[in-house]
């Protein structure tokens, strides 16, 4: 640092690497948010604790989707398959093979990652809508496979994780435990997102997003990068699915492979700002909070209003809140109407 500061290109280097304060600032903010989340726990009664735990769950899911969909630009429309595979692996491992939850959790992550590699190698050659639809097909197909493997998964009748009695391998965590578990997963996902965003790996993904041929010409092994990212994203989603399965105790294929979960992840990322770390975090918190509010106050209309909100948000802020604010601060152009014109025909 001391020799560098004397050199004329100091300005350039400091912009490239960022000042220490600028680099560490977001991490410090994240730490404050984590402490706030831990402090909040004591203030909530158990129903609220469950709601907030669900918000954390979606933070982790949105961050995981953002790796493949936001940074690399591959719109995985079947992301829920890793959630389902993780969840079912844990349920089966705990009830049939008597694994402890923690062991199953870790293995679920790796199983989901392995599954991502297996489907990623053929599917990541596809682009755009074709990739989206192929992954959707995998998720829907896996739901049917799980439904039909009745001996292992209980089929459509569901499978129950033993939580009490002699068969219970790990005591049920309760609302307090799951709050901490999902908070931990959210923190893990944000850290992974933060590391990827500032890393050579993340720049490679952004290059792939912008122009895959050019990225390959720069010497990026695009296939390996994409498959690795898909696996990482699948790993986190698998962990979340495993935790969800334990939390729900009894799980069903329709819920664990529900395409709505994928869509929620995508909406959260898109509304917040894809390809950023803050975006999915904000998007998940805002949307899940709003959805819960609507569910409690407009029980019948809640899906309808949610649909309307998605439409308005997508039309007004197609690039997401965080990207819009960054752009607006740079260009001093805050008008939403001007923003709508960007993608209009």
């Amino acid at each position, binding site marked *: 640092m001391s020799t560098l500061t004397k050199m004329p290109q100091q300005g350039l280097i400091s912009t490239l690497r960022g000042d220490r304060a600028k680099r560490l600032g977001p991490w410090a903010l994240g730490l404050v948010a984590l402490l706030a989340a831990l402090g909040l726990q004591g203030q909530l009664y158990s129903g609220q604790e469950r709601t907030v735990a669900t918000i954390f769950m979606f933070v982790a899911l949105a961050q995981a989707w953002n790796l493949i969909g936001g940074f690399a630009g591959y719109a995985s429309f079947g992301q829920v398959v890793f959630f389902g595979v993780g969840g079912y692996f844990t349920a089966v491992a705990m009830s049939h093979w008597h694994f402890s939850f923690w062991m199953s959790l870790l293995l679920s992550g790796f199983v989901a990652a392995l599954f991502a590699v297996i489907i990623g190698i053929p599917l990541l050659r596809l682009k755009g809508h074709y990739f989206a639809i192929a992954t959707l097909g995998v998720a829907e197909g896996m739901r049917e496979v799980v439904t039909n493997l009745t001996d292992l998964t209980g089929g459509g009748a569901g499978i129950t994780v033993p939580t009490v009695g002699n068969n219970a391998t790990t005591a049920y965590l309760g609302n307090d435990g799951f709050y901490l578990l999902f908070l931990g997963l959210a923190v893990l996902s944000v850290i992974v997102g933060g590391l990827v965003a500032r890393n050579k790996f993340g720049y490679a993904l952004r290059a792939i997003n912008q122009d895959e041929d050019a990225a390959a010409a720069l010497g990026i092994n695009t296939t390996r990068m994409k498959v690795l990212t898909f696996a990482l994203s699948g790993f986190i989603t698998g962990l979340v699915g495993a935790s969800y399965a334990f939390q729900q105790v009894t799980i069903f294929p329709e819920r664990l492979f529900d395409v709505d979960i994928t869509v929620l992840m995508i909406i959260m990322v898109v509304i917040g700002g894809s390809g950023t770390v803050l975006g999915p975090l904000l998007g998940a918190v805002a949307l899940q909070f709003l959805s819960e509010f609507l569910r409690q106050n407009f029980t019948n209309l809640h899906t309808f209003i949610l649909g309307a909100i998605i439409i308005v948000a997508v039309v007004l802020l197609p690039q997401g809140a965080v990207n819009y604010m960054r752009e607006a601060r740079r260009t001093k152009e805050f008008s939403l109407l001007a923003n709508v014109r960007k993608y209009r*025909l």
Partner: protein
Amino acid sequence: MSGFLQATVYGLLQGGLLALVAVGFSLVWGVMNVVNLAHGGFVILGAYVGWEMHEWFGLDPFLGMFVSAAVLFVFGYVLQRFLINLVINGPIFITLLLTFGLDLMIVQGMNLVFSADYRSIKTSYASNSLAFGSVRVPLGRLLAFALAVAITVLLVAVVNRTRTGLSILATGMDRGAARLMGIRARHVYALTFGIAAGLAGMAGAMIGTVGTFNPSAAASFTLMSFVVAVLGGLGNMYGALVGGLVIGLVQAWGGQYLPGTWVNALAFLVLIVVLIFRPTGLVGRAFYAARQEV
């Protein structure tokens, strides 16, 4: 053997209907590069319009389907013109999300208005069946199949032979060049979407006549449209017809010979295999499969 023949006939009849469901979806995808997740919602909406026509005016569903088509055409035109056109140049998940939001509103709206009960448009003749040797063919299905195929062929003729149709194709190939030739792209897009919605509505009215429907059936029709469009391929107007017939047969045979509900996984298996080994589909053009998103 008679089981096989019966399944084959049933598969072909169902395939024709699926072709009509998917032909609009495939057209919209090919021309505008929009994957319309609300397509299944349009189908079911068409079924409800047909049901209402039959319930209140005693209109035969095979006439009521033209009312369904007209209502859905207007609905689709307005949606594209004033909403989807606003984000048409965005990244792909923007249009996916927008149409998903639409789907939520349409399906939930139908749930509120019509409830989640299963309905069916009842006619005096649709469940009568003709017997050919050991094979039985329900009259309603036969009629629906014939109309579905006829309308698909008519659409192909319109698109390939009229000025309007050619302007739709031209806009799909190169929007910039089409606009320079004086084609109003906004109108053409809206028209295309309207036609797609209208055909979906028509198919919906037929589906309501040959079987039962409720709002949550929308999702499965969207998925089937995906499968049929991908299997047939984009860029060839007969793609949906070929894809629909093949999927109809595959599902009918699968239902006959596979245990449990494995047949449900079959369509997705076909989808993935086609995408991996032949992304252009059975009869599609490579141009559309290789196209980069704009």
